[in-house]
């Protein structure tokens, strides 16, 4: 249990992983609580799959320690296998064994020595949960990408895992199946209480599904999301340090002046939207045009071209009250302290 009484199911302490000598993951601390959905977001190559593979014990980290339900995970194969069997993972491009759907869903049960006579009901239940009831005898290789992903999830569900890892579950899925998959993920968590850790490069999706969202960038967890990520250089001026993106200048806190970082990010929730400039202590203000409006059920994401492309999040109420739409001229304003160095 942690200090607020939530059960920590999996914990990573000082975990680093190197590949060919290059640091690909550096996680000082991460704890996964029972019954929650976690979304790991980040661009390709940010270390999402490596993180999931380490958590699922598929690969051993170069350094660091993992804890499962409070107990350290040791290196002995038998004890790792036992813990691994209380988790399951689906790959970004799912691999279905060259047999029937039933044979695939039964795989984890076979691995756990569940007798054949006890498997049928579990398989039926898992397929029912993903909406593929009746496909039991279909050849797995004849399924579409979306159906294959659903079978992979059913296969993972059949073993009733305590933690379910989903690596980019909608990456290779057609539009028709994305909504269905998202509903299934939420239902698995709600109906079974399964802890879910999913990776995605789709930030809105992560926010829709997850209780907690962890942005990952170049193997490190960063304090803000991946939107409003700008590359450039830190420069000094008489008024203080600023970040030069090549298109705009963004004021940053004094303490960042000597940082060698070439990336900054600004949380969309920290940006204020107004139709007119207003007096405030916020030093960063840019005039721009709304180029995209994304409805996020109660919230609205605005994409604003203001020299750089900003993503801003406001409530649906504010959006209506201000009468905004694509093409509206607005000001985006945020404080220097809202800027995070990566």
């Amino acid at each position, binding site marked *: 249990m942690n200090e607020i009484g939530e059960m920590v199911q999996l914990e990573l302490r000082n975990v680093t992983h190197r590949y060919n000598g290059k640091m690909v993951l550096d996680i000082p601390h991460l704890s996964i609580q029972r019954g929650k959905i976690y979304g790991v977001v980040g661009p390709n190559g940010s270390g999402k799959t490596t993180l999931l593979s380490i958590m*699922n014990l*598929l690969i051993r980290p170069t350094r660091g320690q993992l804890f499962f339900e409070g107990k350290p995970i040791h290196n002995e194969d038998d004890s790792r*296998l036992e813990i*691994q*069997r209380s988790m*399951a*993972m*689906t*790959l970004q*491009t*799912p*691999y279905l*064994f*060259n*047999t029937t759907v039933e044979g695939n869903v039964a*795989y*984890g049960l*076979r*691995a*756990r020595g569940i007798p054949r006579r006890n498997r049928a009901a579990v398989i039926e239940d898992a397929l029912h949960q993903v909406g593929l009831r009746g496909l039991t005898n279909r050849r797995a290789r004849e399924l579409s990408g979306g159906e294959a992903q659903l079978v*992979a999830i059913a*296969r*993972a569900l059949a*073993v009733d895992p305590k933690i379910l*890892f989903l690596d980019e579950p909608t990456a290779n899925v057609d539009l028709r199946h994305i909504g269905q998959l998202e509903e299934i993920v939420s239902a698995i968590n709600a109906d079974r209480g399964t802890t879910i850790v999913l990776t995605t490069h789709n930030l809105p999706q992560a926010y829709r599904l997850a209780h907690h969202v962890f942005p990952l960038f170049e193997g490190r967890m960063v304090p803000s999301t991946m939107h409003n990520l700008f590359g450039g250089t830190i420069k000094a001026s008489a008024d203080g340090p600023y970040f030069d993106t090549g298109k705009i200048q963004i004021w940053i806190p004094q303490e960042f002046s000597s940082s060698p970082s070439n990336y900054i990010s600004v949380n969309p929730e920290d940006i204020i939207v107004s139709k007119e400039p207003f007096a405030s202590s916020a030093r960063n203000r840019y005039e721009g045009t709304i180029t995209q409006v994304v409805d996020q059920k109660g919230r609205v994401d605005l994409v604003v071209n203001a020299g750089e492309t900003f993503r801003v999040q406001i409530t649906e109420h504010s959006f209506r009250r201000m009468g905004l739409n694509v093409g509206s001229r607005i000001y985006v304003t945020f404080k220097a302290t809202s800027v995070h160095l990566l």
Partner: protein
Amino acid sequence: MEYLIEAFGDSIELIFSFDREIYGIVGRSLVFSLTATFLAALFGVPIGFLVGTKRFRGRSGLLTVMNTLMALPTVVVGLLAYGFFSRRAPLGFLDLLFSPTAVIIGEFILSLPIIANLTVSAVQAVDSRAILTAKSLGAGRALMTWTILMEARFSLLAAIIAGFGRAVSEVGSAMMLGGNIRFYTRTMTTAIALETSKGEFGFGLALGFFLLLVVFSINILFHFLQVRGR
């Protein structure tokens, strides 16, 4: 030309008269080759699996040796085995020379590298995601091995069929180790060689048809399995 037509007629007559000697040779050849292939698969598949899936010191050298053995001349196998099985040789006390067992051993030695090498290729061709998926679903060592073999099953069957093809069509070692003894160690290939040299071209041609039929069937099966495996 008349000679050929006459021989062809003789061969057809022998086939459709269900000549006891011809069918006996065909049956014996198949028994020898199937037994040798079964034994070669029993050893070759595990060897190929280990070499294909494990990393160990000397692996690349072993692969080179295995590849070289695929092209082993059949008479060399016959010669070496003869050196071991002849009366004064180290294994002479087993009294195996000119016996069906000696023919089977020769064919086994010829099939083994084919099956082992093609098994290496078959297991290496298994998608790495299959192993990752099996691991993520908690597969232990035994189930993991079974899974890899099952995913490669069509290629493995093709490997075994290729091994059978080598065994059934070889002539050198069967001649040297079996002695081509009538109704005992005479196979299709040794009989063809003997009967043709005696001038019994029709007899040789009849056996040649059967041998072609076996090889043709093997190729059809091989092609079918390759298509299924895709």
